[in-house]
């Protein structure tokens, strides 16, 4: 028994010394396994709380879902044994990230939202964060009408202890406005972080990266370039850079900074390929298509270091652009169709088709 406890304590200590990353997830999974093996419910529960955090911030939403389902079941069995607030806080991550998996149906996602709402309401919390999550999830499902409805409820609700931090609220609201193609409103939300003082665990990287294209659309090229430079370094320090990398590749490709775009693409593509969430791949592949279109202007082949899954290079490391582009495009399209089929609309495919037209943004300047 004491062996088990000391091994768990050791793994937990090791995990504390690391930022959210694959190693941290592995260490905590190992600790969870030991706790379960010995039927230590309290350790199993509290280690999974740490595991959920490490998983969420390093892009392992699948691990989050599994650990959360287990914890919620234990909580329902013995509600007085475990802390409600910490579990509910993570429910927001679960609901927010469930749409990243196209195999999870729309009905299931809506049931999750309803279940979360019921639980929060019964526990006496404000629905501020529930309305926000519903709006954000509807954005993910590309259902603007439903998103609008929830937004109206959200802005009327009172903040409370389960509300997202001010920076995250602004960033998510920016995403909502972006989907409505209200670039001014989107930028005014992002600006509070990108140019302001709002900060959190994932900011200013997330909002600033989001803001790059809207700024181009608002003809603020210089500002966009300055901001991209400002946060570029944060990308390599970020715990989950793959989700931001695609935005930087897209932006740099649009403004013609192909060398920098290519470096970021090469650096983060392997992580994207390994990612459990197909949405990450969709965005990166779309960005890659844009980048290759830019590079095609300089010749039919390009030197690139890419993972083995992609069309191979010749002996000098050169790759034909056309088959590479075709590969990325068809993979992206396949993923987009998967999401659209689940969402019951054509939002992702339409966005994908519009990607080449982003060049006009660069040209217009």
């Amino acid at each position, binding site marked *: 028994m004491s062996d088990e406890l000391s091994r768990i304590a050791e793994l937990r200590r090791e995990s*504390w*010394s*690391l*930022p959210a*990353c*694959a*190693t941290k997830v*592995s*260490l905590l*999974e*190992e600790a*969870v*396994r*030991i706790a*379960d*093996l010995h039927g230590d419910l309290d350790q199993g529960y509290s280690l999974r709380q740490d595991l959920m955090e490490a998983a969420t911030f390093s892009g392992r939403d*699948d*691990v989050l*879902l*599994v*650990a*959360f*389902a*287990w914890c*919620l*079941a*234990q909580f*329902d069995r013995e509600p007085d044994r475990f802390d409600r607030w910490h579990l509910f806080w993570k429910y927001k991550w679960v609901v927010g990230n*469930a749409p990243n*998996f*196209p*195999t*999870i*149906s729309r009905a*299931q996602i809506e*049931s*999750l939202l309803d*279940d979360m709402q019921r639980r929060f309401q019964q526990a006496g919390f404000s629905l501020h964060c529930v309305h926000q999550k519903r709006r954000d999830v509807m954005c993910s499902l590309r259902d603007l009408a439903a998103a609008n409805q929830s937004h109206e409820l959200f802005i009327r609700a009172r903040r409370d202890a389960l509300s997202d931090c001010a920076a995250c609220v602004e960033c998510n609201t920016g995403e909502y406005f972006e989907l409505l193609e209200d670039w001014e409103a989107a930028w005014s939300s992002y600006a509070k972080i990108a140019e302001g*003082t709002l900060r959190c665990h994932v900011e200013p990287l997330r909002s600033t990266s989001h803001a790059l294209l809207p700024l181009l659309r608002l003809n603020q090229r210089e500002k966009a370039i300055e901001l991209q*430079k*400002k*946060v570029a*370094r944060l990308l*390599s*320090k970020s715990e989950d850079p793959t989700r931001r990398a695609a935005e930087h590749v897209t932006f740099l490709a649009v403004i013609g900074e192909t060398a920098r775009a290519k470096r970021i693409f090469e650096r983060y593509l392997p992580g994207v390929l390994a990612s459990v969430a*197909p949405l990450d791949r969709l965005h990166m592949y779309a960005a890659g298509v844009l980048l290759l279109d830019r590079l095609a202007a300089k010749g039919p082949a390009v030197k690139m270091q890419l993972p083995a899954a992609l069309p191979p290079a010749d002996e000098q490391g050169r790759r034909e652009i056309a088959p590479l582009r075709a590969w990325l495009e068809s993979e992206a399209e396949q993923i987009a169709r998967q999401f659209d089929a689940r969402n019951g609309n054509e939002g992702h495919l339409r966005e994908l088709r519009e990607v080449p037209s982003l060049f006009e943004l660069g040209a217009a300047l």
Partner: protein
Amino acid sequence: MDHHFQINLRGIIELLANHLYSRPEVFVRELLQNGVDAITARLKLDPAHQGEISFELAAPRGKPPTLVVTDNGVGMNEAEVHRFLATIGESSKRAADGSKIEDYLGQFGIGLLSCFVVSDEIVLVTKSARDDSPAVEWRGRADGSYGVRTLTGEHAPGTQVYLACREASRELFRGDRLRELVLHYGGLLPYPISVTSGRSSQVVNRDGAPWRKAYRNERERTEELLRFGNQVLGGTFLDAIPLRSAAGGADGVAFVLSHSANLAAKRAHRVYLKNMLLSEEADNLLPDWAFFVKAVVNVENLRPTASRESFYEDDRLAATRDELGHCLRQHLIELAERDRPRLARFLDVHHLAIKALAQEDDECYRTFIDWLPFETSQGRKTIEEIRRSEATIRFLTDVGEFHQVAKVAASQGTLLVNGGYVYEADLLARLPEFFDDVRVEQVDPAALAQSFEELSLAEQDRIENLLAVATRVLRPLKCVPEVRKFQPAEIAALFSAGQEARFQRSLEQAQETADPLFAGVLGALQGKERGVASAQLCLNYNNPLILRLAAVPDAGAVRRCLEVLYVQSLLLAQQPLTTRELGLLSQGILGLVEWAVPKAEEAP
């Protein structure tokens, strides 16, 4: 018509006291800063001017203590006093004289207000060095009112600020405390700052920056710097590495931590800007991999953000960071050439940091890789030791996988390296780039059995039926059987699962306890998208039980035995059991009992 808001200065000051100036003692910094900026401006008029700042404390009987701060800087005339001291947010340090705003420390125009946090009244006497205008007295009160009058008589150019201590700030108006604070903020300033209290008067910053002084030898320098590090940062350090950057006009020392550095910890360096303390928590001045040092650095031309904890990310900062990183790297490389024992002590504590560095920098990879320790199935070994014994270095990329197979590998005499920690897999994979004779192989734990001894054809024949039954039994459990020979012979069956297979096990385990909603969501997550990740059960041909089982004709009994063996192998591999597996175990044991104990009517 337009009106102006009335600002309640007292309220603003309370806000400042509680928020902007998180500690009341920063008034010392603001006063020093104003003095330094005034002297900088005066030096532009007269480059030979000798700057000087003094702090004088007096404790008149029955009255609150007072502080007089005097500088011989550029001073102000009456118009400037009205303009700069009466408007919050206005700073005299604008580019009026053609100088750049970056020449000055204070840029935010609210410095003097911090004095109201400790004093209800500020009296300022100033005489401009720019013109012949008379000296001016400005008397500002915390309620927002102020008066100005010109003074007659001789006044030397410069500024004097008088503060009378508020009751709550008495502790800051003590000689020893004030000396500490002045040294804290202005210890590096290049002209004398004196503090006088009662009869004692001393120049506080006589020593200046210790890294700029001349020493008899390297050893004396290091000892002196380490003493300094201990004094200003607290704690003891392993080494002191000089830092210098032309780009940022930076110089200073990096102190090597004496404990293992924490990758997740906040970087907090002590940074001076133009020799005035800017921050003790600057976080972006050194490269990310430099988390094994705490630095004390002065910079001349980098731009701080308003929070004072970072510098603006611009090309100059990037160049500065590169140059400072280069200093650290060079020092370590020289250490490798000159002082192996010291390097060994260093690596003992900071190998993780050096792994981070080696990953970014080829030269460092080449220099350090041989000395870096890795966890292996035969204990901790350096790459050099591993290279010597293994032609092909085999490693795993996951901590959990490594622990799963390390013991078995050890009993086979196989050396496996744990590449599961950050950076390690990358470092191992790159070995062949640097060593012609090294091959590396990433091992999949589910394929570990591949390294066990294979069976001869005759042996394969003997086990063929057992393998066929096992395949059928294990298929619904997402497990694939294989038969090999391995040590120790007592182990009948060895279970191994890769990362994905272990994830699937945890998913199934959660699904069994979850409510229908979550069970459904997890089911959807499991979908065909992910493919089937099989675990593996390796039956041991060296184990007598397996051979006996291969000879049992009753397929039902063999099935039961295999199920129990499977569950036993899970227990051996310390895998928590799912409800289904527990069911298999109890059914299996009951079945075996039934099989072994004859039924009543069959009994003789």
